[in-house]
């Protein structure tokens, strides 16, 4: 004889993973390391932005990068000239998950890092669903992608603290209207910070770096931060 019954669970599938990520976030805040998760489409310029940001922050903060890709360690090689960098290779997975980040941080062995960037896999969909233990999530939108992306990929923009518009040097040549992209993104996330940047030539990095330093001050003061809903 068997019996059949219904068990109520009502649990977020990612609850346990979020707890592990939250613990990492607490630990990193206590040691004074701001963790920044950078999302974008492939080719939006994450690596270029982070290289330029590391150079720009040189006198202000010690930074390191964990860089995710499906294959190759080319981005870590590119970044190595600018900051300690470690490649996280997913072997096919379309996003980073927390255990890989934690292993990467342990393997990086970079002392007294004040800002740790995590360059996620180029993809505006899947990475938005995974808490990597970051204090701050950034979405990068390049002017060559079109200004309609915030409305098409709402989760990436809803869960981010700031949007960096990259490749602004190309604005004269592409049909991208920064105010339209910002308005669309702020319809989804009203308090989203927006920065307009380019890396060839380098421009607009000062406000963006000021924002990062202000975020680090916030974690040092113990202010609430972390994943947004």
């Amino acid at each position, binding site marked *: *004889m068997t019996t059949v019954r219904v068990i109520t669970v*009502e649990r977020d599938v990612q609850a346990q993973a979020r707890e592990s990520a939250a613990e990492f976030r607490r630990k990193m805040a206590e040691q004074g390391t701001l963790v920044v998760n950078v999302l974008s489409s492939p080719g939006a310029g994450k690596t270029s932005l982070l290289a330029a940001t590391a150079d720009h922050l040189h006198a202000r903060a010690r930074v390191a990068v964990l860089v995710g890709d499906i294959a190759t360690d080319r981005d870590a090689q590119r970044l190595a000239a600018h900051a300690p960098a470690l490649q996280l290779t997913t072997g096919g*997975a379309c996003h980073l998950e927390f255990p890989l980040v934690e292993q990467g941080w342990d393997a990086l062995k970079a002392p007294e890092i004040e800002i740790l960037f995590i360059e996620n896999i180029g993809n505006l969909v899947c990475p938005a669903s995974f808490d990597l233990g970051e204090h701050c999530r950034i979405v990068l939108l390049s002017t060559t992608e079109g200004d309609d992306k915030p409305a098409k990929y709402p989760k990436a923009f*809803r869960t981010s603290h700031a949007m960096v518009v990259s490749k602004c040097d190309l604005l004269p040549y592409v049909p991208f209207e920064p105010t339209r992209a910002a308005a669309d993104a702020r319809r989804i996330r009203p308090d989203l910070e927006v920065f307009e940047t380019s890396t060839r030539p380098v421009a607009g990095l000062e406000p963006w770096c000021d924002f990062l330093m202000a975020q680090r001050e916030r974690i040092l003061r113990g202010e609430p931060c972390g994943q947004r809903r």
Partner: protein
Amino acid sequence: MHEASLIASVLRQSLAIASANGASDIVEVHLSIGPLSGVEPTLLATAFERLAPGSGLRAATLCVQERELTAACRACQLEYRVRDFEFTCPTCGSTDADIVAGDAVMIESLTLRSPSDAVPTSSNS
């Protein structure tokens, strides 16, 4: 496709709950998703069909319910349905809000089959 990763987690958690409840089989797995869960129901089903047989959930059925996106206004605490991802409180007009439902993949319930003399050790863990 991160649905496979999420389904692998659903299967692990379901088996742990079934074991804690002395169940011999999982008959149904009920999930809920919403507009900001970031998943496709058909891809969840495909991942389940592919991964369930090797996980011990031999004959389980996946049921996915779609929920509305719901936010709680930080100014007046009203809970309201979010349409077209526009977070504006219908009562006070504030755009400062927290999502309370519709952005996660939730295991809502499990239908378990047990030997009649099995004694459950837990109802929800």
